């Protein structure tokens, strides 16, 4: 392989593999991605993987077993830059919705009983930054193709990625949609990271919050807004927690 090319690794921890799949879904650009960088490891796409020093590691999924704790620490040691891709890596994903450890343990027992796992012990799902330093976060469930390609391109050229630091509402206005909150629908656009292109609202459906909380998300204001629209407290809290993982933990502790 070319020595001048950046060494890249793409890793999956626990999740739906959607972020890695989305990279495979870059049909037209995929061959260029493989040409532009030295893809050292991408288990979903190839068999000849090399686990050595890396310039950039893209990591998807939450840390959910002891084996994954070791794996993510090993990736950190080998990689100059770690990019968390998707909400599972960034916030723990849907599986981090059990914020309380006891709650998680009880639920684990309900599904798997008292069985001792022989290969790796499970741990309460957490985002990767619970264990290692993360340099950049790419939100999404799964990540967006445009945002991934833009980030990949900038990193390849040695520039920091430019991320969207605004909520879905901004993109929604660009798309000239009518506000669904004004129509009384439980839309999570105001607290959700942009980048999806306000896709649900474009389809006349309220935002479910799947790209995770935007930086500085004002959950309190969204909570009161939905209260005013007549939704009940439990419903709002559960709805906001569905995809927010650890990103909503502070708010839920207060309310």
């Amino acid at each position, binding site marked *: 392989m070319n020595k001048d090319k950046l060494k890249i690794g793409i890793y999956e921890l626990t999740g739906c593999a959607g972020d890695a799949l989305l990279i495979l879904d870059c049909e037209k650009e995929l061959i260029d991605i493989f040409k532009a960088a030295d893809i050292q490891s991408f*288990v979903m796409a190839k068999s000849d993987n090399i686990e050595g020093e890396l310039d950039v590691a893209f990591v998807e999924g939450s840390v959910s077993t002891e084996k994954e704790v070791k794996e993510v620490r090993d990736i950190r040691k080998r990689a100059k830059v770690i990019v968390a891709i998707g909400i599972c890596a960034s916030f723990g994903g849907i599986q981090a919705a059990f914020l309380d450890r006891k709650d998680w343990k009880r639920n684990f027992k309900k599904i798997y009983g008292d069985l*001792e796992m022989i290969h790796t012990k499970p741990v309460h799902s957490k985002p990767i930054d619970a264990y290692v330093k993360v340099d950049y976060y790419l939100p999404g469930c799964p990540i967006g193709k445009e945002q991934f390609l833009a980030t990949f391109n900038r990193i390849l050229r040695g520039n920091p990625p430019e991320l969207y630091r605004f909520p879905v509402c901004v993109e929604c206005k660009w798309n000239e949609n009518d506000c669904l909150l004004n129509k009384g629908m439980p839309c999570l656009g105001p607290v959700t990271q942009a980048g999806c292109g306000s896709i649900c609202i474009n389809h006349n459906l309220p935002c479910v919050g799947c790209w995770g909380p935007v930086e500085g998300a004002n959950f309190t204001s969204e909570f009161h807004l939905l209260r005013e629209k007549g939704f009940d407290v439990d419903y709002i809290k559960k709805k906001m927690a569905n995809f927010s993982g650890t990103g909503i933990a502070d708010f839920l502790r207060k309310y």
Partner: protein
Amino acid sequence: MKKISIDHLSRVEGNGGISAVIDGKKVTDVKFSIYEGPRLVERLTLGKTPEEDVNIVPRICAICTLSHKYAALRAMEKALSVKVPEKVSLFRELMHLGEMIESHSLHLYYLALPDYVGFPNAIAMASKFEFEVKIALEMKEFGNHIMKTASGRFIHGENPVIGGFGKYPSEEDLIWIKARAIQFMPFVYKTVSLFCELDYPDCPEEETIHVCCNPSKNEYGFAGDEIIISTGEIVPGEDYKSLTNEFIVSHSYAKHSLYKGKPYSVGALARISNLGERLKGESAKMYKKYFNERWKINPLFNNAAQALEIFYAFERIPEVINKMLKLPDPPIVEYKAQNGAGTGTVEAPRGLLIHSYAITDGLVSYTDIITPTAQNTEDVERYCYIAAQTLLDRGDEDKIRDRMDLVVRAYDPCISCSAHLAEVQKAPVDDWMTKLEEIKGKGSPVFVGIGNRDQADDGAGIELALRMKKWGMKDVFFEEEIEDKKSLWQNGDRPLVFLDAVNFKEDPGQVSVIPLVFILHNAGLSHRFLPFITATANYGQLKNSYVLGIQPASLEKGGEISEPVQMAIRKILEAIH
């Protein structure tokens, strides 16, 4: 003892591995492990609204995202008594056909084909098969385009909702999809001939049970409210538990399933094998040209079956779109029900997918999700065992690793769904002692001696049991003593160990401890008593049973137990005591 292992299965979706342990001339263990961490999705949905459940569950898996959505929608609509107009059903079918094309073309060209033409990945393969790789990418992109049109985006789109869709495509969008589908036909023909004419190895080959959805009106298709089994049985979707009986194993976060105590397979091959006769038009011609008896017994033909299904999907798309064009866009069906229960059965690209829910006071109170890969794990292990043992018998030990890899990949496992790939291990000397200790660790074992005392070494099992009894050991029985076979299985969690002479084609007196299920998979080893008694066992019990086998020197009628076998009996007695 040697262990052949593929710790990280590559070119599959998710994190898993497969391992085989080889002790001399036999394979003593095969495990398909899933390292993907537990996500507890079924529990996550409890207390959520039906709408939120439909948002969350597709996140189980990115490749089968729309199948999960579809299964959840069908289940919820049954539970809430929502009847959707024809256009909704057609648009859902179109969306599902898009997913089949996307998933099958990804698997066939990117993940499976490199093995058959000797490349580590599709990008490297592009150097020799530039045309195929390029057009396959376009085909996959076309599948993605349909998924995006129907769901809003490539993965985890939210446009399909309970009662219909948020938005419908324009007439131009639909006509473009139809025209594009017709344009692809030459490459679709090529795909079928390529994958149906590949030289699939003849091992592993053994009968299995194929299970899939039974589409209504005797048609081919990917959804239905009934489940059809290759034995001829048809089960209503609601009664899926009589079929799947999920259980948990300690080496995987995916649950395992068995049908009447036997492993079964789901997926494209199961569908083609059960429903292939229902294909119409050009797909029927393709089916008649290529389908043969080997497809029913060799899991590697799943690749060929997927190619046929791509053909079916491309032939079906114009029909669906023609019907859609005649119908108006209906508003989302509203519902008032707050309570109910429903089960939705659809075919995900890799097989039968079941979602079952109960709704109480408007919130989800019960969730059960059975994924295709979870149903296939037992058969994956069984076929890997057969492949490994057959290759070992043929003296092709060095081929085992790659063959197991090929088998697992043919199943197109979706590991995220079920919760990377192969390993071959050599057993250490006297591995049976370690195994016996492991069994004792699970609970005090019950021993059953079996065999024929008048046929030389075949009496070894009975002789061993007799000597154990003489030593004053309790919980030791022989074949004749057990009148009610069922009683054998009423020992709670205590492991059951059958003592028997087993022909592993090794040196006489060689001792081995093997899980009972492997003996049952291996026709050459099976003792007639074993299939008979195992018929009354359930899966958990079967999984908790072992055979302590001694290699006989002779099975001559009227003969005495040979010297090596006598030695073995003494060694075993010392070890047990």
